[in-house]
């Protein structure tokens, strides 16, 4: 029994040492790492955006870095003439800048561009920089309707040194239909492989999907996180949906209708109350003139 008691005391006395020992060991790895991610997004072959994401890595925990000021330069040249824009990350650590018109010539001058992002320190985020090199590319959407089935043909076209566009013959493209909060795939597959001819064919299996009043739906083709071309997305409107007949609820007598369609009960209620009160006011006016007449009766 005594031995057990001594062993128990030994365990108890050693336990804090172990606990604190672990804490010390952890604190050695506590250095916070600052991470800055740069992404490129081409929207509808018209707008070029540089998207930024700032995070801190504390041990194994990633946290968005809010309020980090980032300057983004074109072609890794950190002179003010090549400044795309500066921005401050939001609560999710995200920010984006658009390539301004003033850099249009520099943008057109080369097939390949490098974006340099330089972030200031914003505790606990430390100053850091990051870059991304992309080659210019664009998407093309075409539709195939052979009477019995419908398909979407997507091409990824890369810019060549001579300024022409050539189809890219590898990679994946996502094809979907824009809905209210996200994109719906056009069929069972979400992603389609570009074949040797430079085309990805997505079969459209969403017959009867609700469209707008004319039956239009919006098709979206997207290249996501491509190492060479970054992110691209293109949309096209096609009349493949089922027209949605919007029931107008503003042409009936409702509280939310226009002024000519007041509900009868409200019209009656307000008119009755207002008229009865103003009838008293009118009666008062009559009494006033009665009193005046009484004065002049003498």
């Amino acid at each position, binding site marked *: 029994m005594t031995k057990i008691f001594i062993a128990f005391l030994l365990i108890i006395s050693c336990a804090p040492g172990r606990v604190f020992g672990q804490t010390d060991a952890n604190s050695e790895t506590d250095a916070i790492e600052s991470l800055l991610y740069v992404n490129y997004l081409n929207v509808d072959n018209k707008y070029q955006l540089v998207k930024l994401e700032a995070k801190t890595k504390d041990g194994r925990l990633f946290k968005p870095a809010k309020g980090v000021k980032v300057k983004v330069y074109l072609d890794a040249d950190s002179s003010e003439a090549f400044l795309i824009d500066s921005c401050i990350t939001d609560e999710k650590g995200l920010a984006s800048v658009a390539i301004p018109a003033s850099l249009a010539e520099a943008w057109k001058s080369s097939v390949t561009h490098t974006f340099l992002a330089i972030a200031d320190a914003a505790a606990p985020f430390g100053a850091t920089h990051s870059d991304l090199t992309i080659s210019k590319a664009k998407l093309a959407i075409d539709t195939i309707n052979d009477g019995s089935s419908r398909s979407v043909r997507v091409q990824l076209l890369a810019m060549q040194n001579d300024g022409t566009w050539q189809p890219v013959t590898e990679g994946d493209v996502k094809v979907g239909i824009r809905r209210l909060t996200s994109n719906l795939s056009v069929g069972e597959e979400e992603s389609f492989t570009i074949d040797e001819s430079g085309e990805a064919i997505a079969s459209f299996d969403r017959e009867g999907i609700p469209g707008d009043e004319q039956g239009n739906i919006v098709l979206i083709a997207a290249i996501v996180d491509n190492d060479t071309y970054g992110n691209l997305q293109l949309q096209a409107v096609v009349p493949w949906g089922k027209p949605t007949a919007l029931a107008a609820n503003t042409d009936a007598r409702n509280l939310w209708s*226009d002024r000519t369609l*007041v*509900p009868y009960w409200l019209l009656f209620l307000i008119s009755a*109350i207002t008229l009865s*009160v103003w009838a*008293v*006011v009118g009666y*008062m006016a009559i009494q006033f003139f009665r009193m005046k007449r009484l*004065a002049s009766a003498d």
Partner: protein
Amino acid sequence: MDSIFTPQKITSDLLPQPFGRRGKIWTAILCAFCLVGLFAYYRQLRYGLSVTGMRDYVSWGIYISNFVFFVAISLVGSLITAVFRLLNVSWRTPLTRISEIIAVSAIVFAAIIIVVDMGRPERFMYLVIYGRLQSPIMWDVIVICTYLVISLMLLYFPLLPDIKIMIGQTKSKKTFLSRYYRWLGNFWKDKPAQVRINNKAITLLCITIIPVAFAIHTVTSWLFATTYRPGWDSTNFGAYFISGAFLVGAGGVVVAMYIFRKAYSLEAYITNKHFERMGRIIVLLAALYLYFNLNEFITPTFKMKKSEASHLNSLFVGDYAIMFWFAILTSMIIPILILVTHWGRKPLPVFIAGVMVVIGAWFKRYLIVTPTLLHPFLPMSNVDESYKHYWPSWEEWAIAMGSLAGAMLIITLFARIFPIVPIAETIAERHEKLHKHD
């Protein structure tokens, strides 16, 4: 005691007096506030509502707080005049005209401040041209106009016998005032038939003004309660507003009673008894309003729905906590503690409690309007930092203070032109009392 109050003495005691030195300084200060407010309003018309601190989120700032305050204090007209008259409260006489003029001046400036808040005043016509009867804003416009007309009538009809006295006093003079008195009431001859018609008219007005007064406060509360926002989404709002309005109205009356009593030496007419009774009424109304406040805050606090939580926290422990607890303490708890004692119902403590009620009530209206707008259901994002806070610009303060000064200026000028305590009614009352003693 009453025998020394001959009609001549009562008349000479209660006739409006020309401004003394203090009266002139007071009027000049009020005019100065009004002029600064007018200049600020000119700037707002010239440069638009961007001169205010209001932005997309806080689109109702101190203008609407002031509007709610004016609407609230105007309820006093129906409380003292109508309710007391219908209940045949014998000591009401010296208080009726004070409460009626407070009601009229407050409702006039409530209407003005709404037009100020609209930005471009000519757009008020759009309410007439394009107004939707389905909107509580239209109901408010209708009920404010109605209440103003009835309040003016309730001020005018009981004033007729006193106007006759004023005409008699200024008969030999050919001043602007004498002509004005004659224009207002030259037809009043004190004939029994006229008196009978007048009394009947006043009684009917008293009956009518009570539901209209309830309607104006309820509809004003519905401007908020029919809007789905944290802090406004309440079925309690109508009763909450009416109880608060009764309280601030009673507070306003005791403040005015004390000032007129001091300024015009009316101690024999506005007596300690009046303060004692008004003190009791304020305790009752403050307790009632405290009860509605508990109702208003306890139930959402118990549930702490996420959308309500940030709003409630900002009131209880956050940015607005000091103002919130100041308003609760000054408009309800401290006045109750003062007035619940016999000593506390002497004129000066009642006046102090009244001032606290009025000041606390103004901040309470600000707390009803603004913090809610800073806590929308969807988080504020992608907006300038200035959109996330509200602090009124100097133009807003100047216009708000100018409107308060304007309301007090109406009361001051009214007391200069008309007897602030009804002369004819006081003579009749004293006469009746004397005969009872005999």
